[in-house]
């Protein structure tokens, strides 16, 4: 919807800017001045702001994250035929929105993190196209429980699980990592050898 609105706005802005380009004499009168202001300031500025919003929203999409070749194994892990791997379980059972699968669990990454995270995002692009991609990709900081507890915290299945009762406070304080027990995550090195689930409907 937002994208459609932006396309309409871009089209309108372009037509008006083209009008000024081909017939600048139109701007001589008062109405023409208003036309120039709308065509060369107001509409382009709104288009720019709306475009930024559309692009920013797009960076949350699974398609965006998996558009780099290096992310392919991580995308494949969403489709791994496994009932143990966290990304596969969450993705295949609709525990996360499939269109925003990566962002659902990595909410503080690149564009949506602090300034350091944003700089790292630009660095990722540089490394992807110009530099050397490391053989093993790792998170910069240990994975935070808040990403899990954002959904699971307070839920009945989490709170009443016997395994969680004793460590609930530690988990909340990030003293114990969820991944200490739930350690089957992306497994990028092995995921290529695993069979896939739902190949016809790739993310």
């Amino acid at each position: 919807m937002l994208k459609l609105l932006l396309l309409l706005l871009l089209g309108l802005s372009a037509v008006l800017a083209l009008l000024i380009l081909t017939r600048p004499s139109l701007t001589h009168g008062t109405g023409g001045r208003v036309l120039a202001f709308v065509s060369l300031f107001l509409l382009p500025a709104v288009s720019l702001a709306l475009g930024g919003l559309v692009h920013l929203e797009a960076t949350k999409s699974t398609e965006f994250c998996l558009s780099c070749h290096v992310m392919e194994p991580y995308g494949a892990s969403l489709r791994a035929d496994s009932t143990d791997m966290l990304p596969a379980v969450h993705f295949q059972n609709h525990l996360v929105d499939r269109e925003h699968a990566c962002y659902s669990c990595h909410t503080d990454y690149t564009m949506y993190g602090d300034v350091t995270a944003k700089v790292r995002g630009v660095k990722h692009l540089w490394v992807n196209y110009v530099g050397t991609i490391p053989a093993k990709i790792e998170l910069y900081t240990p994975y935070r429980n808040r990403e899990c507890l954002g959904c699971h915290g307070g839920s009945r299945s989490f709170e009443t699980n016997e395994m969680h009762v004793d460590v609930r406070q530690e988990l909340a304080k990030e003293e114990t990592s969820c991944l200490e027990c739930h350690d089957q995550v992306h497994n990028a090195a092995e995921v290529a050898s695993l069979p896939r689930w739902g190949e016809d409907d790739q993310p």
Partner: protein
Amino acid sequence: MNDETKLRRSAILILAGLGVEAASLLKVHPMSFLGFAGVGGLLVTLGILLFLLQLLRGGSSAA
């Protein structure tokens, strides 16, 4: 450079920027984002700034 030429210059920059912005919407990719912000955004901003500068300087046809 007369006022009409200045207006045309702004319009050309803005048109080019809008074109890049539209093209950047074709694909969801980090390079699209960079193209939008780094090229399209820059061209549109330059066009707007030139127009506003012309207004501030009291361009007769625009202001």
